[in-house]
């Protein structure tokens, strides 16, 4: 922000909503701006804009991945496509379960946050982060297993797409892990904590769902 005043104002509002940040300002941020008459004046970005922004970003990310998916479908069914179906490494099943579990723990963390249970929140939030890192590690193991079988990026179109899908998704998930860590350790400035938790949760659940879709595509659509 160009000025210190805006930041101060938000911090004022934020600290005014109860100590420890253990409040429901995520939901409160949504509801409070509805009238737009007094305290939600025009010099400040309303908290709901961050949530709107995340949904818009997800629309763009979805189009990015759908471009890959449509390329996959077209390329696979080309005449003379030289396509050899790829046996997905079995560890992907485990990774998928881990990622789904991380969404559940994240939901748990969000629930604890709403119940103003700061310790519970931090516990489940950290668990989610750990599961996320575990997933990325699992994906790297899958890559190494494929590489050990001599299957690289350029080996076959099917392996090319496998690496592109997992790589692009993995990068997006790494961004999500950074965001989780940010909320765990910082997230007291600018964006109110409740909003940050909301925004990161939306992103994480989306990346989870996206992975399940990509995995099913790679497994069933091979």
């Amino acid at each position, binding site marked *: *922000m160009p000025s210190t005043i805006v930041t101060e104002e938000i911090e004022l509002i934020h600290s005014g909503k109860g100590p420890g940040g253990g409040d429901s300002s995520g939901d409160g941020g949504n509801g409070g701006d509805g009238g737009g008459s007094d305290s939600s004046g025009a010099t400040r970005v309303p908290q709901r804009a961050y949530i*709107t922004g995340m949904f818009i970003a997800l629309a*763009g990310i979805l189009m990015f991945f759908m471009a890959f998916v449509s390329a996959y479908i077209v390329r696979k069914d080309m005449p003379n496509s*030289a396509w050899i179906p790829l046996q997905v490494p079995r560890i992907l099943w485990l990774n998928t379960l881990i990622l789904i579990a991380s969404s559940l723990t994240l939901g748990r963390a969000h629930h604890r946050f709403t119940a103003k249970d700061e310790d519970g929140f931090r516990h489940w939030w950290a668990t989610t982060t750990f599961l996320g890192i575990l997933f990325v590690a699992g994906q790297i193991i899958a890559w190494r297993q494929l590489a050990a079988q001599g299957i690289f990026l350029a080996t076959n179109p099917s392996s090319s797409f496998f690496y592109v899908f997992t790589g692009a998704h993995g990068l997006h998930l790494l961004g999500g892990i950074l965001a989780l860590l940010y909320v765990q350790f910082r997230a007291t400035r600018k964006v109110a904590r409740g909003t940050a938790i909301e925004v990161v949760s939306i992103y994480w659940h989306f990346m989870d769902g996206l992975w399940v879709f990509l995995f099913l595509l790679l497994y069933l659509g091979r």
Partner: protein
Amino acid sequence: MSSHAHTGGSTVHAPMAEPSGFIRKYIFSVDHKVIGIQYFLLALTAVVIGIVLSLLMRFHLVWPNATLPFVSGGQMSQEQYLALVTMHGTIMVFFVLTTAPQGGFGNYFLPIQIGAPDMAFPRLNMLSFWVTFVAFVCIIAAFVVPGGAPISGWTGYTPLSGLGEITGPGEGWGQTLWIVSISLFCLASLLGALNFIATTIDLRAPGMSLMRMPLTVWGWFVTAILGLLAFGVLLAGGILLLLDRSAGTSFFIPAGLVVNDQLQPHSGGSPLLWQHLFWFFGHPEVYIAILPGMGVASHVLSTFARKPVYGYRAMAYAICTIGFLGFMVWGHHMFVSGMSPYSGFAFSVLTMSIGVPSAIKTFNWLGTLWGGKIQFKSPMLFALGFVSLFVSGGLSGLFLAQPAVDNMLHATYYVVAHFHLVMGVAAIFGIFAATYFWFPKMFGRMMNEPLAKIHFWFTFVGAYCIFMPMHFIGIAGGIRRYADASAVGFLAHLQPVHEFMTIAAFITGAAQLFFLFNFFYSLKFGPKASKNPWNATTLEWITDSPPPIDNFGGHYPSVYRGPYEFSVPGALDDFIPQNLEPSQVARVK
């Protein structure tokens, strides 16, 4: 600062402090107004380069054997001509037609017109400009790397663009830089689009309902949605193309391809897949270039005809419809690619159906002018020029939209003439109208009106002199990317037409110096502009020229009426600003 008070339709806050220091203020600024001007200056640099490239192309077409001092070996080679074609198209489409109307004017005026202090995410805004800047540096660097600029056209068709140096001098480093540049541009545009959409949804002033937004805001808003959904697809395509070039994958390169007697080590890829990914982005991109211009034209026509926009709602819906249909017609760029005639038919019908919202817009522009007290100021002239060029260029689109006709005209100068008029020059006229209209607000000074009018007439007549004859060359079978048509028997007799176009291009190019001089001279020496020199109604005109750092100096407006209340019966003035409460409007006694 916690004191909020209502005084006459505005919320009062303490004014913001300006950031201190040159770098924070002008280089890495998070102020949308500074970023808007940065985008504008980037586009201005790009357009100068783009025009010089096009003049070199026109020169070469007429005097192919002339000795040029700056070309190694004296004469321009055919590959160098193709490099000019590629770089002209890329620079103009991405760094001028996308950057100036949306990144420049959209950034500057969207927040002010909806009564917001800034974009929703100012840091993201700064990031998107600087990524665009890096993308621009990458594309310019393609001129100086070994092998020079790429030769595969602004569409980067595979397999030519996917194989590296073996397919031509610029296809090594130059093509790689092209892909990197375009991918970065996509990333920056996605961030920008995200910001525009969130700002429009969540930062509108109290009372600024969707149907009270100026049509310029509608244009930028829908453009941002198109960008959000289209640029990600090109980014994905760019990544796959880069992998084909550098990692040996075969997404786009077919098996058994022999180039320069060498069998290429690829298998089973599809060059058409690239065309689909590219044009799924490429067609919405056309509307990304033109929709802001449509918004500006409506805005300016209404202001200088002193009449409300005729059929405001229809105009807003037409913008949305054009944006929606724009995603379903990409196949019309590929009629000759061997696609099924049935899908060609579907693409054809959908393409021609865009004529409906386009006709609604044109009809309403004329309806806005009808019976108005028209003031022929320079922004008005350029807005009228926009309408003229949009119609002239759009009509030839109806021919090209039919597969049977397109079979004859594809890849001829007819296509070049069509898209230059409808998306190139028309969009440029939108940019000029916006520049002359908003210059007083952006820089606090007026531009010189006689110079602006000279600039208009040279550019308007010049554009028609360049691009109207081009249609005939196309119908006669002139192939668009031939470096030297005089060597082709059936085209040789058309050389005089080419000569006419080249002379017109040089005169029109030179006339742009009127604009450049006027722009920079007025920056320093133009007469001071008042708050509202055009007696316009929208929110940017109720604040200072140029606006303070937080746009409204702490007095945030509330909105009580639509954006185009000109010549309201019973009102004393012939314009009523959007923030005026009903009780504040002066009435005829």
